[in-house]
């Protein structure tokens, strides 16, 4: 009995020390969303259970190994005990009760994390190898004073603080996964159109810059598939959205530069001559392009237009087909495509 008493005290001491360590050490990244608070509360529950069970088993084993060790020269066997059914039933029933309770709080925290705010705004997230793009739908006043919806594209996910956002996730090729550690939530992004569009709900509550990184392996540059996130006050967010939804009053080439940023073109097509996921744009216009089928074409306006509208029609030699999203023709206005072409034309090699 004395052994049991000593071990019990040791288990309690060890549990408290380990539990305090786990709950006070900064094991998790900063809490940047409302959902993170709920998730971290559940982590807190887990830490204490971990502290208890690790202590229970290791203290008993260490104590046994030290105290019940066969001394030098000692012969003979241990105490003849083959088991104890009461104990076995006890340590079956109690864990069952614990895991059921844990599943119940697991379900209720999940309900909390997934709760939908009727005031939430919606952002469409487009993932493709290996780029994130974001699209906001903004009502603007049309020529006749009526309200029309216009899409605002961005390569950075700008979010208002303290406002729930519903991210509608679309993949254009393989499975990706939207993961922001500071938000504590994750959702795979599936290809296959509307039927496979999934939602992720998050309420940012910490201003600052974060990064979304792809968490589901998606090919060669998976590790580098990331985009910036900026959480700003609501008023700033509204101003930003207004500014983005305004017409582009710059020159064609400058507007094209802006679209090539917001639609993510330059993530794959470099502007400095480096070979990226796709061919560089520097000095592209007017050059002779060798295609995968062995033929050669001149990169004129018609070629550029065709390459944006139907990317798989003329594949450049050395690049795999099927990488570039094929929906730019639908997503961009005709004028925007023309402006992007104007921008490419302006990039002359030195």
């Amino acid at each position, binding site marked *: 009995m004395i*052994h049991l008493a000593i071990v019990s005290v040791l288990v309690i001491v060890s549990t408290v020390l380990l539990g305090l360590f786990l709950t006070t050490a900064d*094991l998790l990244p900063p809490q940047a969303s409302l959902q993170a608070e709920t*998730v971290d509360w*559940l*982590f807190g529950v*887990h830490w204490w*259970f971990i502290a208890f*069970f*690790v202590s229970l*088993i290791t203290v*008993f*084993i260490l104590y*046994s*190994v030290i105290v*019940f060790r*066969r001394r030098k020269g000692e012969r*003979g*066997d*241990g*105490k*003849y*005990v*083959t*088991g104890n059914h009461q104990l*076995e039933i006890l*340590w*079956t029933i109690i*864990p*069952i009760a*614990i*895991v*059921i309770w*844990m*599943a119940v*709080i*697991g379900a209720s*925290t999940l309900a909390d994390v997934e709760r939908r705010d009727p005031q939430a705004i919606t952002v469409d997230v487009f993932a493709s190898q290996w780029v994130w793009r974001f699209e906001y739908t903004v009502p603007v006043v049309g020529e006749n004073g009526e309200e029309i919806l216009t899409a605002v594209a961005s390569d950075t996910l700008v979010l208002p603080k303290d406002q729930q956002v519903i991210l509608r996730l679309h993949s254009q*090729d393989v*499975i990706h*996964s939207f*993961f922001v*550690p*500071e938000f*504590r939530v*994750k*959702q*795979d992004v599936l*290809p*296959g*159109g509307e039927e*496979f569009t999934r939602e992720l709900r998050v309420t940012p509550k910490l201003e600052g810059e974060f990064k979304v*990184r*792809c*968490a589901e*392996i998606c*090919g*060669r*540059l*998976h*590790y580098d598939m990331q985009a910036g996130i900026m959480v700003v006050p609501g008023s700033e967010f509204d101003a930003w959205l207004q500014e983005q939804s305004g017409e582009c009053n710059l020159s064609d080439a400058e507007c094209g530069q802006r679209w090539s940023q917001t639609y993510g073109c330059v993530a794959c097509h470099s502007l400095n001559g480096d070979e990226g996921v796709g061919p560089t744009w520097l000095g592209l216009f007017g050059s002779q392009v060798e295609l995968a089928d062995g033929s050669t074409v001149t990169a004129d306006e018609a070629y550029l237009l065709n390459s944006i509208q139907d990317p798989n029609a003329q594949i450049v030699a050395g690049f795999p087909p099927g990488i570039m999203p094929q929906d730019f023709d639908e997503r961009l206005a005709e004028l925007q495509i023309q402006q992007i072409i104007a921008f490419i034309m302006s990039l002359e090699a030195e």
Partner: protein
Amino acid sequence: MRFFSTGLFRGLLAQVLGTIVGMAFVMAVRVIMGLPAWSAEASVQEPVLVGGVLIGAISFLVGVGIFDDWFKWARGISTVDSIEPDPAKPNWMRYFSVDYDHKVIGIQYGVTSLLLLGIGGTLAMLFRTELAQSGITFLNSDIFETILGYSSEHLYNTLMSLHGIVMIASILLGVGALSNYLVPLLIGANDMAFPRLNSFGFWVNVPGAIILLSSMFFGGFDTGWVGYPPLSLRAPIGMQMFLIGVYLVGLSSISGAINVIVTTFTMRAKGMSLFKMPIFVWAALATAFIQFTATQLIALSFQLIILERLLGMKFFDATAGGDPILYQHLFWFYSHPAVYVFILPGLGVISELLPVFARKPLFGYKWIAMSSLGIALVGFFVWAHHMFASGMSPYLRLPFMYATLLVAVPTGVKFFSWVGTLWEAKITLPTPMLFVLGAIIIFLLGGVTGPPLGTIATDLHLHDTYFVVGHFHNTMFGGYIFPFFAALYYWFPKLTGRMYNEKLGKLHFWAMWLAFMVLTLGMLFIGLQGMRRRVVDYDLDLGFDATHLIMTIAGFVIFFSVVVGLLNLIYSARRGKEAKGNVWNSRSPEWQISSPPPLHNYAQPFEVVGEPYDYGLPNSTYVNMTPAPDGAHGAE
């Protein structure tokens, strides 16, 4: 050179020839169909190569001689059931040819498993070196690109994916080694129920492993070992080699499982009721049930990918009415229970060895036996916990969370019973016991890191991070690697009749155990911080560099500790001190006969007269090795 007359050499030769013939055959079919026979395009090469390796694999099996008896039966020629080794040939040749002795097959499994363990470990060291610091600094060396012809990022993905699947193959073979060598010895049988099927189960792994490893030279594959479509539909031809290789290894699981189940139920010694079997046999039985019922599902899911790639069937293409998530269900329906295939035999080894070194009965024998079956059963209802973030129906997640957490109950029974076994015992700590205790602590870490992955809200943060990697490596090291080495050291004198070097054994244990703790705590920590898995590089400003460097060093310590361990065993097998008798003073029947065991194990059937683990009960024995002939006290 006698090696040229071994089955293995003939098999390899046949595999090469068969592959060429198979490729020629597919090319001929293509020409008849009016398609190009060969070109630089992967889409043309793929069907030709797939046809080639499939015929090559079958040719290997024919060449090695595994079908010889079956062919003879088909032609109406009878064969001898138990084949005595040819005294004209040296003994080592038995291990390189088809042999029906379960002990030879067990060692064939074990050595192949260790070979794959070395390859898988080397792959891990390569990418662990890359991860030691941020930035791509090692795999971008020109040597790799010259040999393999692909980029550093793709190389990382391939190494990481291959590490996973090669280790899994190694573990499956190791499980095969344990159950093949031990089950007949422990239950008093002279061999497995189906010796030819048993040998087939081993040999099919050889072409499987060769094809699997060849994937590196066919463009690699970048999907991880899970092979989710649509990514796996776009991966290079190496993907097919991965799928076909695993398919063949899966055949081994199924045929091996049939053998274990039938052997256990029909060939036990007199008096050995199910609850008087050595506890390892329960674990092997539970494992075999899983292998027998679940392996078909991974074969099916891989087959669907093979067919979608070859024939354009749109199983997983959402735009054509397919479903990308369907694959994940099929895949995990095997691959979750498979995890229990990896750990149950190891947990069985722990339960088997603890009483011997605690000199005390196994606490709650029946509870431990039933908990193995419990884990095997519950393991079938939890597969979708790998898919909480996958985008399957949100409501479906809840029942899987409940079921997942329930796994803790039978696992807890094992832990508590082990603690009960050690309590008030007389513990000795030779190398096998150190590995057993080390395994319990590491498996405990794997156990307690499970619930945070089981509750959905916390899993949504942890999924696809290093926390999962840490948790998984805990379960594998605690549930397989450490127990497997415990078993190797414990039964080494039985296998060889010689003793390993105790000092080196302890060095192996302490280096590996401490380094693994460092490695796994590092994994768990950066995983909580948000470090994603399966990435070749990470941002410097995440602050993971120092942890990764420490983890890489720890990884190398593990690698070299295993090298020390294996060198110790190889050296001791030839030069070690003779150890013929019951070196551990065990009650188990295999220790009551000479080491290594004679050709047909037990010269005469023994009789079970007591409980297997009644250490501390005076004047009791488990088996009576020389029971009076049946006639003496009448028929029972």
